[in-house]
């Protein structure tokens, strides 16, 4: 007979989140002393399934950092904040169709692709602009060298499969 005890359910969920967060944290905790470099915290948060904007990340980090920023983040501070984020299901990933629509917004004449120049322009001038490194990395995977353009539908399909 199964009786669902809500309180127990939540506890289990929280416990599981704790373990998940700990694992993700440890990947970047090089000296196994429960701290990570603050520059890596964005990656950790994202690796836990969250998809925040840079602005949202900035606010989150302010919560997690020490009063006097030391350059690294302690696990004790990270855990409660991150657990809350996961419980509240904040910063959910972007669904594939929304992503596709976004590309289509940038391609109003519906050609099905964006030129390399257009992509660079949008990614480095609009939204929360890419750094040069980010731009180069995206181009290397996205641009079809023959046409010098990105067929975004194929691109999305490829990336999504890869993401697992």
């Amino acid at each position, binding site marked *: 007979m199964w009786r669902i005890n809500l309180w127990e359910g939540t506890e289990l969920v929280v416990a599981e989140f704790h373990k998940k967060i700990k694992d993700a944290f440890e990947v970047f905790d090089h000296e196994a002393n429960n701290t990570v470099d603050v520059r890596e915290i964005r990656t950790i948060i994202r690796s836990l399934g969250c998809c925040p*904007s840079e602005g949202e990340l900035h606010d989150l980090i302010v919560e997690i950092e020490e009063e006097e920023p030391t350059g690294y983040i302690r696990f004790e501070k990270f855990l409660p904040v991150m657990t809350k984020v996961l419980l*509240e299901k904040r910063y959910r990933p972007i669904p594939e169709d*929304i992503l596709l629509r976004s590309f289509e917004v940038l391609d109003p*004449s519906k050609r099905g692709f964006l030129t390399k120049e257009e992509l660079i322009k949008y990614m480095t001038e609009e939204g929360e602009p890419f750094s040069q490194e980010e731009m180069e990395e995206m181009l290397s995977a996205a641009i079809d060298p023959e046409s010098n353009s990105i067929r975004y539908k194929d691109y999305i399909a490829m990336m999504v499969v890869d*993401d697992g």
Partner: protein
Amino acid sequence: MGTLKAHRAVTSMEKSSSPSPFRDGNTEAQEGKIHERCPSPPPSPGGPSLLARISTHFTAFKAAALIQRWYRRYMARLETRRRCTWRIFQSIEYAGQQDQVKLHDFFSYLVDHFTPNSNHERDFLNCKFTTERFLQDSEMEKGSDYESIEVPDNYTGPRLSFPLLPDHATALVEAFRLKQQLHARYVLNLLHETRKHLVQLPNINRVSTCYSEEITVCGDLHGQLDDLIFIFHKNGLPSPERAYVFNGDFVDRGKESVEILMILFAFMLVYPKEFRLNRGNHEDHMVNLRYGLTKEVMHKYKTHGKKILKILQDVFCWLHLATLVDEKVLILHGGVSDMPDLELLAKLDRHKVLTTEVVVSTLGRKTRRQKGKQPAKEKAARVPAPELALRPGRLHLGSRGGTGPAAPPASPAAAARPGDPGLDGAGSRQAPQEPGGGEPPALHARSRLGSPEPLQPTQEAWKQVVDILWSDPMAQEGCKANTVRGGGCYFGPSVTEQLLQKYNLQFLIRSHERKPEGYEFCHRRKVLTIFSASNYYEVGSNRGAYVKLGPALTPYIVQYQANKETHRLTMRQRISRVEESALRSLWEKLFASSLDLLGEFKKHDADKTGLITLSAWAEAVESVLHLGLPWRMLKPQLVNSSTDNTLEYKSWLEDLAKEQLSRENIQSSLLETLYRNRPNLEAIFRITDSDHSGFISLDEFRQTWKLFSSHMNIDITDDCICDLARSIDLNRDGHIDINEFLEAFRIVEQSSTEGDTSDCPQATNTDNSGCSKPSKR
């Protein structure tokens, strides 16, 4: 994937105070209808209304932001995968290094506690567990005796004549690039000259940027010749104007350690003032036994390999410990401790200090006991001390080097670090205790015989060297034992600061640790790690780097990846390749522990449903493998069935086996044990094969195996051992080829279950020769 609804709900929950593209009032409406709001044709000459134009702009802005947001998350996940992969390799590698420590503990344990049952066994032990490191000069001359070696006329490789000229060295580089091999005669000759040169050098070398305008410092090469050639190609060959310092770990793992050594030594002889080589922790014959140099030498030089190894062993001991640039920049391989003593380092006899050596001497045993291992004084009586002390050749009475070696503890870890991990910031590591009760009388007698000589390597000296070669920096304050490596320490920023202040230095350059970018600054840029073996784990795994110092001593870093292929791969592709490789190693490890895993899984499955939760899986795997890996993050790559958060563990284990073996059965624990201990076995066999002939007798094999299994708590009966030996000796000549054994153990396992074990004589009476003459097969 979430739905539109969820997405909308989330955006309305966001409390971000900074301006964000999602904060305008029309958020919900726009999100839900984004595709309908796609602006149609570009603005007409009359111009759309201001509102329309603003809406358009916002939409493009938002669209871009969404894409960027998504992309950054994607890259973060890639990066995490890369780190996980890195961690896999590291844990496996460090676990391997810890095995090395275990091996040493094993030997010292045997020496301390093993009671030989017979003369035969005692002799066997005596032979195996002693070293003849300190050869007299005359012996060394005889050993290298290269002049008698003939070089055949059809030899097309490079030829050396001494004194070496720059052209010779350059020719060597070119020859090795064309995959030629240097004849043993020249190898020995070169090593002989190298040794003569190194002996004159001080422990801490000093270089100055007055003479060479720039100094290039390179880190670990680990037998990767491609990287060395690349560095010379990109940075230029060594010359009086272009000084080089190579910071240790030239050998092991990579396949061209010998060639690298030849090139480095050649340039050192040609440009003695401008070309320096620091010792690394891999410049050590015990480490070489395990990590590949010994194998490589014996493989490339079948006739003269032994001689080469012997003199190489000595050459490594003579490599100096550190280099000081302009009295300001200290270059050494590993790191420092919170009690650095450069004066002591400068004075000690570096030739006598090997960080990993197992030394059998009365002094040695006393020290080992002092480190706090419990079974101490009482059991000591069992080892026939006088016998050990009087064994001929062990404790030198000669003039050179006077005493026996400084009796380092059996393993680097043993250097009395009481109450180890978790020491706090005060750096409260204690100095190791000197062996109580003074030194044995024999030692005193010897030092009286000896002529005045450099400071005898004491416990303290040994520790200084271990710290230099094995330590790693950490971000946290303090100084604690480096339990991962089993030797040296983790040192924090204030330790660095202390060192720099004490000796008026600007910064420290070290190597010893792989870095994804080939280099890394830490401790407020006072410590620079430089690592020069690119693609260390696998193609695409990391860059290599070297650093240049000019008179201003500002470090200028150059990175590279010595493999054209990697440039063409995207990050995604690079990561998958490396990941595959890491996963393969992980599969192997998992397979090797199948039985243990099954046991652990069953513990989590009290109701015997055959299922466990994925969380339980992660716990179980960690408790068996002790690799400290983030199993939950690796789960997608290791476990297929993640449908409803449970796993059918038996079929998962079976799948594991199918990955590993094509035909054989996995039932046997012997197979798994062998597989798991494969690196250890290989190392042990190489030590057993002390004449490096590539063969060990069946008897030696049985003895060694018995000792090994009893220490490692492997429950294998004598029957099995006999069978094993019998099956391996395919041509019945009483000898086993090591390589064949390691290759054949899977097949051996099958035949041993089929064979008739009753024919094998019991291996209890060690006076008989065991199973060398089986009556029936």
